[in-house]
């Protein structure tokens, strides 16, 4: 208990952000109205961006806000509004075996946490080094990512741009009304 309280007092910002994240993620998977789910999804993605900032990944946080919060959530809301009359939807949104499913999922989550704890304790010399010993992440990670994209990760960058193009064409072909 003391350990837990110390942990909570030691990094309040982290725990506040992750509690917001987990509670809103729980709302995303349980609420009945799918539009409310989309709103809570936006909150979850914002909190993930906050965690990225705490992990010295400012560029990723900005990309997260731009792509997920700005684009994907809007896309979700568009699809909801185009595909269902959510205002007067009173049907059940979760299937009837939700409680049955929640048990194995809980086992899975606890098992993953236990596994991770064991692994991390085992590899302690790898990560529990002296802070002076550990080279800090480069502060200008935006510049570093730009350099990486143009040098070492050139091929994945091009491949991913072709993937985006094909996804765009695929979406257009799928969503277009067929003319006969």
């Amino acid at each position, binding site marked *: 208990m003391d350990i837990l309280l110390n942990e909570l007092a030691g990094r309040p910002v982290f725990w506040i952000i992750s509690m917001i994240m987990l509670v809103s993620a729980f709302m*995303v998977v349980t609420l009945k109205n799918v539009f409310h789910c989309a709103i809570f999804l936006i909150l979850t993605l914002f909190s993930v961006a906050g965690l990225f900032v705490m992990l010295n990944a400012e560029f990723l946080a900005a990309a997260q806000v731009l792509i997920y919060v700005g684009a994907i959530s809007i896309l*979700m809301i568009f699809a909801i509004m185009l595909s*269902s009359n959510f205002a007067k939807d009173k049907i059940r949104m979760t299937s009837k075996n939700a409680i049955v499913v929640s048990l194995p999922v809980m086992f899975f989550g606890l098992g993953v946490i236990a596994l991770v704890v064991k692994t991390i304790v085992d590899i302690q010399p790898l990560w529990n080094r002296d802070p002076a010993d550990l080279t800090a992440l480069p502060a200008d990670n935006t510049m570093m990512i730009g350099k990486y994209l143009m040098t070492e990760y050139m091929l994945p960058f091009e491949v991913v741009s072709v*993937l*985006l193009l094909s996804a765009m064409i695929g979406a257009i072909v799928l969503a277009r009304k067929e003319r006969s």
Partner: protein
Amino acid sequence: MLPYIAVAAVLFSLGIFGVLTRRNTIGILMSLELMFNAVNINLVAFNKFVWTDALIGQMFAMFIIVVAAAEAVVGLAIVLLLYRNWQGINTDNINIMKW
């Protein structure tokens, strides 16, 4: 480092729960996004605490974000197509590929 990994594991489990229990196709896609984000948190946390010499984890997370965007676009196009052809996007009505 441990709290980040634990939080990400809980987020991933919530995503699995959503994928398994939602009846709405858009709800399933949203739960998928939760799982992608849990993976990204893991990658960035390991990048910060275990291997700090290069930004490998952050690069990988960025490519995952791009692929997730592409996946969401195609998935939502399929949802719209389903809605046009079946007048509803609940997964229990869509059984055309059931053998």
